[in-house]
């Protein structure tokens, strides 16, 4: 009996393996509809998600994020070891790796790329690798990172777009006097290390990537990745047009499907409506300063903030705005962020508790306040209108101030806003980025709210150097406990990335950090 079972199992495995090997088809160009065009394809100096989320197709990093976005796996480096004292990282490069022009990827290129990423004068992402003190090479395969202090997030940082490896010689040969000037020239026709190479870019319209013949990755069929001959991005800013184009078969995939259309597309026979897990959180930021522009600010009272939180029916907002696609937040960070804690929705709707907290705070009759809303953004207007009604129950009169993004950012940065809506997505598979902005006061005054908690600040400082994973998780558990109880936000919901794909598309992946991976995507012929 055992023999038969074993034989059956072997047969199943064999069939399974051969099926998956046969199933993958090579060739073809996948056309993907994006809501906006990229701006600048330099991994270090870019500023926006429109660049970040596609960069990994062009530039490879030493390590790659795992599909769930929480761990690391081999990239250009096949082995990595953090020293026992946490003060250095040894990495071994993969054999025979090459840039898209056929030149070898050397430890010198790696050292130069990482130093450029960590340079404080370069871009806004250097904080992710600020622990790097020096990068040295040893022989033709080894790179050693020397750290200023133990950094528990250093391996995760080596998967982030800004640590991508560029060819030093080609970059430095580009015209221009400064690094920024050279980057402008280089990024127009980059020599890259990822699965694809930029072929052409018609700004505002189409960007064409073709396969990098020198890419190291191997497919299920044992042949080099990528499976596709190329990827074409079409810029289709209007949601309805993007969906129409997908439905008519002119494109193979479309990002940012509006929540209101998700159900409809789920039932479309020719499409797969994907909801990729994400780290995106939607929340309202509350200014917690005692005074704003010389006037007393009721939101500085933690009880008022808690009351307003209890008065918000998150389920109703999720139903109205996300059409049920979102789910309530259980911490300020998404459930897809490593070290997230919490299994219950924060501030479950309880109007009586809200009223009693308002009374305790001395605001039984409510007060007048305002919220900044992005003009023309239907989701934000929907949320604000719902909040207006919900908070009216507490006697709070909410004025909606519709402004454009630059105006809002200005008021936010100056700390003179009262409330605003916002969304956040992690760039690194670690809780340190979101915590540094939301909680840790030295970065940006806890979302420019003026909120400060000494214990949380100290815990964050300690967690940045704590290499004992258990201890660090405990630190983050406590930070979340503090912030979720009295922090300056109304956590609303977390949402996945809604991407609609033609049924002939396989293997496309958007990880929780937002990065779109076409390296393993393939099309039915």
């Amino acid at each position, binding site marked *: 009996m055992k023999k038969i079972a074993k034989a059956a199992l072997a047969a199943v495995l064999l069939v399974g393996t051969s099926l998956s090997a046969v199933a993958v088809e090579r060739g073809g160009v996948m056309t993907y509809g994006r809501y906006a065009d990229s701006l*600048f394809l330099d991994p270090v100096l870019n*500023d926006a998600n429109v660049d970040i989320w596609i960069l990994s197709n062009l530039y490879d990093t030493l390590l790659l994020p795992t599909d769930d976005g929480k761990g690391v796996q081999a990239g250009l480096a096949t082995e990595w070891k953090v020293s026992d004292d946490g003060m250095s990282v040894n990495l071994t490069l993969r054999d025979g790796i090459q840039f898209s022009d056929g030149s070898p990827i050397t430890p010198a290129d790696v050292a130069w790329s990482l130093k450029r990423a960590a340079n404080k004068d370069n871009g806004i992402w250097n904080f992710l690798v600020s622990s790097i003190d020096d990068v040295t090479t040893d022989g033709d395969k080894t790179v050693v990172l020397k750290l200023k202090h133990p950094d528990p997030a250093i391996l995760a940082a080596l998967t982030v777009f800004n640590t991508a490896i560029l060819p030093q010689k080609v970059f430095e040969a580009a015209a221009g006097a400064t690094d920024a000037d050279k980057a402008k020239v280089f990024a127009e026709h980059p020599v890259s290390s990822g699965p694809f190479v930029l072929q052409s870019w*018609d*700004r*505002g319209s189409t960007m064409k990537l073709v396969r990098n013949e020198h890419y190291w990755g191997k497919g299920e069929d044992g042949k080099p990745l990528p499976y596709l001959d190329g990827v074409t991005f079409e810029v*289709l800013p*209007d949601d*309805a047009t993007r969906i*129409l184009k997908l439905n008519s078969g002119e494109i193979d995939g479309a990002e940012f499907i509006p929540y209101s259309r998700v159900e409809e597309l789920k039932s479309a026979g020719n499409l797969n409506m994907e909801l990729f897990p994400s780290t995106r959180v939607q929340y309202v930021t509350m200014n917690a300063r005692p005074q704003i522009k010389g006037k007393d600010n009721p939101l500085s009272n933690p009880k008022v903030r808690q009351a307003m939180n209890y008065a918000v029916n998150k389920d109703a907002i999720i139903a109205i705005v996300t059409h049920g696609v979102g789910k309530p937040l259980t911490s300020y960070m998404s459930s897809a962020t490593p070290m997230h804690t919490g299994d219950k929705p924060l501030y479950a709707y309880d109007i009586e508790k809200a009223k009693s907290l308002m009374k305790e705070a001395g605001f039984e009759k409510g007060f007048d306040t305002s919220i900044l809303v992005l003009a023309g953004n239907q989701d934000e207007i929907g949320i604000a209108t719902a909040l207006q009604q919900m908070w009216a129950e507490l006697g709070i009169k909410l004025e909606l101030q519709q402004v454009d993004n630059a105006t809002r950012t200005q008021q936010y940065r100056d700390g003179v806003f009262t409330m605003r809506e916002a969304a956040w997505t992690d760039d690194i598979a670690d809780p340190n980025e979101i915590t540094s902005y939301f909680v840790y006061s030295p970065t940006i005054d806890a979302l420019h709210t003026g909120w400060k908690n000494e214990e949380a600040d100290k815990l964050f400082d300690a967690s940045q150097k704590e290499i004992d994973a258990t201890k660090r998780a405990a630190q983050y558990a406590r930070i979340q406990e503090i912030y979720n109880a009295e922090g300056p936000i109304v956590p609303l919901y977390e949402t996945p990335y809604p991407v609609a794909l033609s049924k002939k598309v396989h293997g496309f992946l958007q990880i929780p950090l937002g990065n779109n991976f076409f390296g393993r995507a393939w099309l039915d012929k």
Partner: protein
Amino acid sequence: MQNIGSGALPLFSFVLRRILQMIPTVVFILVVTFVLVRLLPGDPASAMLGDRAIDADVKRINASLGLDKPIPVQFLYFVKNVFTGDLGTSIALKLPVTTIIMQRLPVTLMLTLMAALLALVLAVPLAFLAALRREQTADAVIRGTFQVGLSMPVFYVGILMLTVFGATLKWFPVGGYGDTFADRLYHLFLPALTLAFSFSAVLMRNLRSSIIGVINAEYVDFARAKGLRPRIIMTRHVLRNALISTVTLFGLQIGTLFGGAVITETVFAVPGAGRLMIDSIYGRDYPVLQGLTIALAVLVSLTFLATDIFQAWLDPRVAR
């Protein structure tokens, strides 16, 4: 045509005068734009870096763009550069502004031109038909249809066109811009038709009432009495005189057409200057905004000039 001979010299000095008048207009627009964009709340670095930017980064980047200098100093640099043909570098796109404008403005121009032509093709014959069949069924149908065109928002007409002629009938692509010139004309047809829909409504209504006015004029009766053929009466006497006010309207509406192009370009995913303008306002991309404003100011002024010249040709009294 006999009017032209005697009017050639006044026409020439008229054109010269109008060109000279254009210069202060463009300079005025330039100064106003330069100052206004800087008075808007927010700055390029904040807009570019978004909510996460820390103060040090914002200051460093604004300083690298020269935005830490007083506005008059920035203006002097700008004027100096404009006179050397340098409109600066886009803050967001990191490309020379002239390169970006040369890529994007022709797209909008082609779209606007196609829309204007389509509007004329639709409006002129139908205005004649409606005027000649005044208060009859044809008139009612034509006016009713155009009324719908006027009252429907451009983005809605656009989505309707895309759904019917693109996704359903597949006569045209669902948005986008093509690779070759012919392919681009094909891609631009539906957006141009969308723009032309409301534009032709304005033209048709104006032209119809002008024709009705002219048809009953004494000189037309006189032409008829002279025994001229109806076609000659219509083209030489009726159309020519009825067109005067429509040409003015046409010129003025071209500016509006640019405005409509912003929405149409978004719905149809056409990479034109309209979308670029919106992006650069939101992104506080001062150099692109200034460059585009200059280019558009010159273009609109040239359109007005062309309108004036055409009008002066139609009615030589204008040039005097």
